[in-house]
């Protein structure tokens, strides 16, 4: 079999496989991410089916997948929404960081990872999956609930924090010491603030530059600009992902709506390939030994995430059942934990792969299940003091 036919066959089977897994996941009311990860573990070297021909393509597709994931993340929230979440829920964001990042950092050190690896693991346990959580809230009919603004605000703040955390991580992984990591963060804070302010004033110009009545033109211009900025950011020693995120942030809300619709299918395709590539790079034989640590980490960070949601919902005056719903809804970790772990693995700390994979598998499944379980609680809940 020649090279081209082998490549096409492998990719065709891969996409069909992902489609079947996605369908099964949605039937169960779960995210397809853990399913794709498990399937990818079974593939590749040491797995059931080797994907030798497709591997170089997958590696490149995975890079584009990360860029598109971060671009759509930046498109998801407008600058106004970021500012208003920050004003109202800044303390919740701090609690989120203080409760959820240290368990990952400590576990990383205990596992014998270098401090840069521990930092990456802190990011893995810190950031909830906004994709899984947002979808979950819609599926469970919780959009009108009183705790929902608090949950969404925490997600927005985490996404903003990603824009600061990723450059710091990239600098740290480059091995230039804590000093330059701090400088990297300072630079990132400056860049994010600059883009946010510029977007408020001049975002509509960028929107006009990219808009065209033809969807194809919009797609080409948007992807072209994003890859250009991402490439420049990478060349400057920042991260391609952050460059893409900033592009998404800079686009005005009026254009973002259309961009999301046009970009959606492309993002789904490449993001799926990114999860496959991550799973392929992880040796399935190492998952089992890493599982006890992943389970311990899952138990601890489930509790800390519930605490975060509890705190945020209480700030909005929500009662106990709502606080539990908010906390459990935030438990799910997913795409961004994988993005962070992928960066660390690519930078020469492959030991983070198995523990991060095990952890995300557990959290992406247990989060949605847990928050469904607390739903009936409110039927039994009676306030201690009856309202007058």
């Amino acid at each position, binding site marked *: 079999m020649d090279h081209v036919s082998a490549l096409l066959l492998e990719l065709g089977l891969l996409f069909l496989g992902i489609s079947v897994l996605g369908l099964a996941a949605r039937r169960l009311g779960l995210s397809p991410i853990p399913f794709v990860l498990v399937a990818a573990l079974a593939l590749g070297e040491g797995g059931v089916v080797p994907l030798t021909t497709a591997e170089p393509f997958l590696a490149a597709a995975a890079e584009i997948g990360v860029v598109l994931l971060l671009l759509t993340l930046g498109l998801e929230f407008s600058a106004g929404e970021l500012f208003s979440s920050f004003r109202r829920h800044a303390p919740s964001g701090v609690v989120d960081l203080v409760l959820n990042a240290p368990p990952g950092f400590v576990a990383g050190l205990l596992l014998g990872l270098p401090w840069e690896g521990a930092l990456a693991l802190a990011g893995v346990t810190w950031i909830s999956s906004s994709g899984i959580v947002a979808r979950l*809230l819609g599926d469970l009919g*919780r959009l009108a609930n009183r705790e*929902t603004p608090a949950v969404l605000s925490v997600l927005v703040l985490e996404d903003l924090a990603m824009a600061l955390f990723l450059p710091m991580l990239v600098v740290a992984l480059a091995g230039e010491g804590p000093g330059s990591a701090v400088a990297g963060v300072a630079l990132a804070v400056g860049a994010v603030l600059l883009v946010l302010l510029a977007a408020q004033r001049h975002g509509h110009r960028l929107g006009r530059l990219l808009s065209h009545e033809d969807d194809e033109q919009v797609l080409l211009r948007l992807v072209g600009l994003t890859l250009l900025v991402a490439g420049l950011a990478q060349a400057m020693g920042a991260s391609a992902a952050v460059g893409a995120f900033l592009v998404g942030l800079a686009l005005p809300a009026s254009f973002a709506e259309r961009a999301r619709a046009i970009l959606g299918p492309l993002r789904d395709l490449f993001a799926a390939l990114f999860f496959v590539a991550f799973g392929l790079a992880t040796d399935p034989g190492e998952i089992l030994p890493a599982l006890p640590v992943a389970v311990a980490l899952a138990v601890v960070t489930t509790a800390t995430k519930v605490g975060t949601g509890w705190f945020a919902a209480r700030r909005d005056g929500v*009662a106990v*059942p709502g606080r539990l719903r908010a906390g459990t809804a935030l438990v799910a970790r997913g795409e961004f934990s994988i993005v962070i772990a992928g960066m660390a693995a690519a930078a020469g700390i492959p030991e983070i792969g198995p523990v991060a994979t095990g952890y995300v598998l557990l959290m992406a499944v247990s989060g949605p299940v847990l928050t469904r379980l607390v739903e009936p609680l409110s039927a039994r809940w009676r306030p201690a003091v009856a309202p007058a």
Partner: protein
Amino acid sequence: MELEETLLPGVGVRYELRTRSGQLLGIVVQRDGGAEIAVYDRHDPDRARGVFRLNAEEADAVADVLGAPRLTKRFADLSKEVPGLQSARIPIQPGSPFDGRSLGDTRARTLTGCSIVAIVRDADVVPSPTPADQLRAGDVLVAIGSSEGLEQLARRLSGQV
């Protein structure tokens, strides 16, 4: 009436309406134009129950159902409050001289003293129309004025004057 507005980042806006009868209505208007309408749990007032999910088209239909009669009702109320002031719904019949012409061409205010406050066209309502708005056969004009003025306007629109 209390209408509270809360921003839902990445989703849309939630409105909460406490009605005079004490019921609480929650409406989430999503960015794509869809909407969710919910009432809240009696025991757990933070929790939405009985959620209606509307796509953009359905939400528009509901808005029209609630919007069109409300508008005319408001003018009916107004005419009750101000003695001598009446409101009327005057159709543009096929064959009317104003079919295809602008609202300004009717010179309603100059000739009859009536104000045209809305144009009802099928399920749509154009509130506070401008003189440049085009009229079509089948439109219904919502007008307020004196009863003589309204009669005059109805005759003029049907082409009798």
